[in-house]
């Protein structure tokens, strides 16, 4: 008979306590009604009445909040806009991160250590402070414009625009793109490139036929690792974006704190989570495959 050891049970306890329970709480909240109370909602599910409460809840269930999300075009627009920000940023991150990771993997041991340090170093400062630093760079009288005007170039007003949000997202998530790419590129056997050259490949052909296909697990891991949290990003669009920048993170915040509509905020969070389940599962599978060897 198989006995359950503490080490096998512990992760489940952990997940139940810190993931499943909060998730159910948010799900329950999303099915409640708004009320002028503290907390500002009227629960539909009353577990203190036992099974009766559960059946009453099932009868009264009308998913009214979710229906509102579908019809209110603000929510739909925020949802689509979040996806757009995440997709475009992921593509930019790939275009920027791949050459970076490639250069790191192909440089000498000493340079490689230095570059790795440079990628990790930002984590030693608070994320919030780093985003504030971007405000200082991008604001109308900021560092960027000072540099531009000293060169005699026209200045840019980037702060509080979508462009600033893209800059912030790419900046903040770059390490998450570079590290998985670096991991696969660094593992690649140099003699495979020689074999490709020997069989008639120019260096560029060798890259596309040998290096790139073998780096696809890293591309997938990096893209998902960036895409998933970027969809729900709040701090960057809030601090760098303008009033017109629509993202789900901001909507949740507004519903929760400004409108005090907890059920709506919860419903938006649940929809976002549901959307991200597929890429998350993809990421999990990818990781499992990488651990297995290929």
């Amino acid at each position, binding site marked *: 008979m198989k006995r359950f050891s503490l080490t096998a049970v512990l992760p489940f306890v952990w997940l139940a306590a810190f993931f499943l329970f909060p998730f159910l709480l948010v799900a329950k909240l999303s099915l409640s009604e708004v009320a002028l109370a503290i907390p500002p909602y009227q629960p539909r599910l009353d577990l203190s009445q036992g099974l009766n409460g559960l059946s009453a809840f099932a009868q009264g269930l009308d998913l009214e909040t979710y229906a509102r999300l579908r019809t209110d075009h603000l929510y739909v627009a925020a949802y689509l806009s979040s996806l757009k920000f995440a997709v475009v940023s992921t593509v930019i991150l790939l275009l920027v991160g791949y050459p970076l990771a490639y250069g790191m993997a192909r440089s000498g041991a000493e340079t490689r250590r230095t570059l790795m340090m440079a990628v990790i170093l930002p984590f030693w400062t608070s994320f919030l402070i780093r985003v504030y630093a971007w405000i200082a760079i991008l604001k109308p009288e900021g560092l960027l414009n000072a540099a531009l005007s000293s060169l005699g170039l026209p200045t840019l007003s980037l702060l509080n625009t979508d462009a600033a949000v893209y800059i912030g997202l790419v900046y903040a998530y770059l390490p998450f793109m570079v590290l998985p790419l670096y991991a696969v590129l660094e593992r690649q056997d140099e003699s495979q490139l*020689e074999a490709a050259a020997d069989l008639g490949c120019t260096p560029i052909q060798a890259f596309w036929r040998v290096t790139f296909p073998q780096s696809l697990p890293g591309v997938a891991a990096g893209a998902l690792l960036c895409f998933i949290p970027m969809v729900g990003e709040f701090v960057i669009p809030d601090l760098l974006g303008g009033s017109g920048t629509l993202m789900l993170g901001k909507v949740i915040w507004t519903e929760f704190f400004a409108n005090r509509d907890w059920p709506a905020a919860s419903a938006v969070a649940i929809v976002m989570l549901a959307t991200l389940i597929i890429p998350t599962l993809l990421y999990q599978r990818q990781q499992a495959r990488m651990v297995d060897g290929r």
Partner: protein
Amino acid sequence: MNDPARPRLNIGAIRESFAPWADPNAAPLVRFEGVYKQFGDETAVKGVSFDIYEGEFFALLGPSGCGKTTLMRMLAGFEAPDAGRVSLGGQDLAGQPPHRRPVNMMFQSYALFPHLSVEQNIGFGLSQQGLPRAEIRARVEETLALVKLEGLGRRRPHQLSGGQRQRVALARAIAPRPKMLLLDEPLAALDKKLREETQFELMRLQQTLGMTFLIVTHDQEEAMVVADRIAVMSAGEIAQIGRPAEIYETPNSRYVADFIGDVNLFEGRVTGADGTKVRLGSNDCPAGLEALEDDHLAMGSPVWLAVRPEKLKLHLDPPGETANRLSGKVVDYGYLGDWTTYVVELASGRTVRAAVANVSRLVERPIGYGDPVWLTFAPDGAVVLTR
């Protein structure tokens, strides 16, 4: 090259008639001329010159680190010589990148592409040449059959055994039909039996495809079996080039004699030379040593006599007073099945190895530790070495 009149499976020693290097008019396919290669402050290759002829199976043989791989990589284009010239078909290869050179290399580590199937690995060079799909398919099938891997084309390299992977690496290098195939210790990972089988397979392939092969190995038996000629290397230099039998029977130095097979070396001084024979005085042999040698060696000059263990004859009773008569006692012996090797300590303190073929299963007088024995050898069984 693939002359139909020439018998195709004339393997090994039967290829005696193939000797383009002896023909002064023959143009070599590959020529190394005074090639040097430096890595940091270490000189890996020191002024190497040799030729390889079309259709030849040429072996580079030498201990680890003597520069074999470096020479091969210069031919493939992965290293550039610091001085000297490497040419192929009369054309200097300097400045030609690896992908333009008509040679293919089978890497010591195989370097298979893990993301491609066996078929795609083998077809890699063919698709790079821009052949049509159908032709690539046919050539891949043909090559798979050649290396006896039919039915494994769909697998990935990690789903193969070590020996099968080695065959894929070989097939991938052969498939584009290069002018020349470079094999860097291709059989090092195989067990003895599979290695011997594959050696003959390589020779068969080389004959059927009519390609020129350059093999790097540090296994002297392997070089002797497969190669038309062997270049024995020592610390970045070539010590001797010749047919396997030449190198074994007439080594030009103590280094080569010692590197190829077992050898007993006797030190002595010339006491007489008449243009056919030379006589030596040696501490190891009070009766004097005698060997065939047509050089007139200066009286008193120091020389060495190299005698292979199987050229020594073992006697249990004292033979008559002759030259080349050694006496001592058995200090060790090893039974090898087909041979028994006896280690005999001479009165001078030197130990000598003698190999005796086990012709009969019945031994009339078994030889044991400490038994006195006598060893003799014929003058034509020894080689005189001056360095």
